């Protein structure tokens, strides 16, 4: 699960990680109040206005309706009102949102932390993430803060510092010191960075996260170390024991069909294609999507109905797929192991009749226990449904259907 920047910063703060302070607002009026409050609390007279959506690239992104960027510096309270009015309620398009963009419902009014002083402000990169290859967490750091880290890793891999944490021991202070020294820090900023890393790891570990990315981490002109942005990814499987974090889920950021599918116990991911599919098992579901592509179509979705495919799950799956207007055909692909194919076939027929008026072609491929009985039930149903037994046969039938569209 992803959370917003303002939520991630609250989590960080609760673990003692220093952050760029800010107040979240829903309207330009609230944004103005937030700015006044921030001025009273921190003394800042410039304000960074940051659109809160679950996507990166906000600073370079553009609000479709007004042309405003997604992150803007306001140098007066008047500007706070004016600019937040151009961002809130607009549709922000960034390199990560796709052309349709995302509606901005909340804005974070944050203090300006790039103020002048004895030193020069400098940005760093810091993240903690799961390294699947070693089965442990890795701290990644770089002096190239504010940049796309994948690009840095590609062009100047020597600028990426990595420190792996022993899963049974947890982070040790010497590891945080190593990272801080490698970043070239000295004196007070060094000490601050060590604290920052130790607390960040505690936040990561305590939240059952799979990624905490702080880009940039800022060394201010007076040698403080602050999180200016925060991208957090949490382990869905551990939300049951992190109820406070589970409550941060923002359904507005998710596709409504995916939310609905989740409520029916289906694992659904919406895609852009023209052939819907419903499959038992995640691996076979992905393979079925690939097969649709090889047959000349484009998959409209990923949908895993799980181990116990029955009339109810099939009907719920049908209803969700049919809500996507781009879908021109549906392929059901079930390998009946312990679940028998004849029962699944009856379930499909029942669901079809219960929905009624499905006017797009459906191909049902049932293989495994009682596959032939299953095919017979489909063929004799009198519905606009074609049966198949082998995957190859299913692929050919998808191809035929697509040619007749």
């Amino acid at each position, binding site marked *: 699960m992803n959370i917003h920047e303002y939520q991630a910063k609250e989590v960080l703060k609760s673990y003692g990680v220093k952050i760029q302070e800010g107040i979240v607002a829903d309207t330009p009026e609230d944004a103005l109040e937030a700015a006044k409050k921030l001025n009273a609390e921190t003394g800042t007279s410039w304000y960074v206005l940051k659109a809160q959506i679950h996507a990166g690239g906000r600073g370079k992104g553009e609000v479709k309706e007004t042309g405003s960027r997604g992150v803007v510096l306001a140098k007066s309270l008047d500007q706070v009102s004016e600019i937040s009015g151009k961002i809130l309620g607009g549709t922000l398009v960034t390199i990560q949102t796709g052309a349709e963009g995302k509606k901005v419902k909340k804005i974070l009014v944050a203090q300006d932390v790039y103020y002048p002083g004895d030193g020069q402000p400098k940005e760093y990169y810091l993240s903690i993430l*799961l390294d*699947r*290859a070693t*089965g*442990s*967490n890795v701290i990644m750091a770089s002096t190239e803060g504010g940049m796309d880290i*994948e690009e840095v890793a590609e062009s100047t891999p020597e600028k990426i510092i990595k420190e792996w944490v022993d*899963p*049974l021991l947890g982070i040790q202070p010497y590891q945080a010191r190593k990272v801080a020294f490698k970043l070239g820090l000295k004196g007070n900023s060094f000490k601050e960075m060590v604290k920052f890393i130790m607390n960040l790891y505690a936040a990561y*570990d305590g939240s*059952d996260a*799979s990624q905490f990315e702080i880009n940039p981490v800022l060394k201010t002109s007076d040698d403080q170390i602050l999180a200016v942005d925060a991208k957090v990814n949490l*382990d*869905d*499987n*551990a939300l*049951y*024991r992190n109820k406070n974090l589970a409550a941060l889920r923002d359904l507005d950021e998710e596709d409504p069909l995916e939310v609905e599918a989740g409520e029916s116990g289906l*694992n659904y*991911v919406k*895609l852009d294609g023209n052939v819907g599919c419903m*499959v*038992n*098992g*995640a*691996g*076979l*579901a*992905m*393979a*079925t*999507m*690939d*097969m*649709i*592509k*090889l047959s000349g179509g*484009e*998959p409209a979705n*990923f949908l*895993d109905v799980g*181990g116990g495919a029955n009339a109810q799950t099939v009907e719920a799956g049908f209803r969700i797929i049919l809500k996507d207007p781009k879908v021109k055909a549906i392929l059901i692909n079930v*390998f*009946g*192991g*312990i679940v028998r194919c004849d029962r699944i076939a009856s379930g499909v027929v029942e669901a079809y009749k219960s929905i009624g008026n499905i006017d797009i072609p459906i191909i049902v491929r049932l*293989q*495994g*226990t009682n596959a032939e009985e299953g095919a017979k039930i489909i063929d004799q149903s009198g519905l606009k449904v074609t049966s198949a037994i*082998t*995957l*190859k046969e*299913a*692929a050919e039938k998808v191809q035929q259907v697509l040619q007749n569209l």
Partner: protein
Amino acid sequence: MSVLVNKNSKVIVQGFTGNEGSFHAQQMIEYGTNVVGGVTPSKGGSTHLGKPVFNTVEDAVKATGADTSIIFVPPAFAADAIMEAADAGIKVIITITEGIPVKDMMKAKPYIKKKGATLIGPNCPGVITPGEAKVGIMPGFVFRQGRVGVVSKSGTLTYEAADQISKAGLGISTAIGIGGDPIIGTSTKEAVQLLMEDPETDAIVMIGEIGGNYEAEAAKWIKENGNKKPVVGFIAGQTAPPGRRMGHAGAIVGGKDDTAEAKIRIMKENGIYVAESPGEIGEVMAKALGVDA
């Protein structure tokens, strides 16, 4: 012979008396697997499906000499069950449970390694050596006895592959479902290595998906090892968009090496026969072995 499980395996079921545990234990017993008992805390001393129930894995091992365990314990308690099995001296621990927190597995994995146990899964269909033992949830009849080994991250895709292999006139030595989670006990490479060294396996099917580096690591090892047996590979998720989790907790494209394209390219570079379509796994295997499908 074969690998991991055979007719001599003495199997216990952890989470024996729960719904899933009961149903699949019954199926395993019917298949002919040597199930010697089960574990459900606080139900020790009773009998379930005609087999003794124990409070702890330690008690079960003492009484039955069990060397293999299959785990159906719910996700919040599964990592604990894995560590209990390893501590009691179980050598092969097969974990079916889906949804175990990553942090729990991160601790369980090095712990059981220290104890000298092999963990298969979690989030996997288990292991089957046809005709000898099924320690998993797969439909046994799909797996005809033979000499092709299977390593797979996916359940139903394994059944699909096994079915195609049977229809191509071949059969399975051992099929290993390694699981679809980000942290799993046995990697693709480790499972392939077991089959490469098994005298009863002539060829290997390796089924992977997007996410992680296991397939690439296995492919490189296969070449370094001298491509001793033909290996057929398939990677699911060529059409999966980056950054989206596709059902399995581990099936997500994070970086450029996680993609199906990258994995397929690396497999080809290392002498693996790649099935482009999931419908061609059996045919490609028959061709690789030079038999008529």
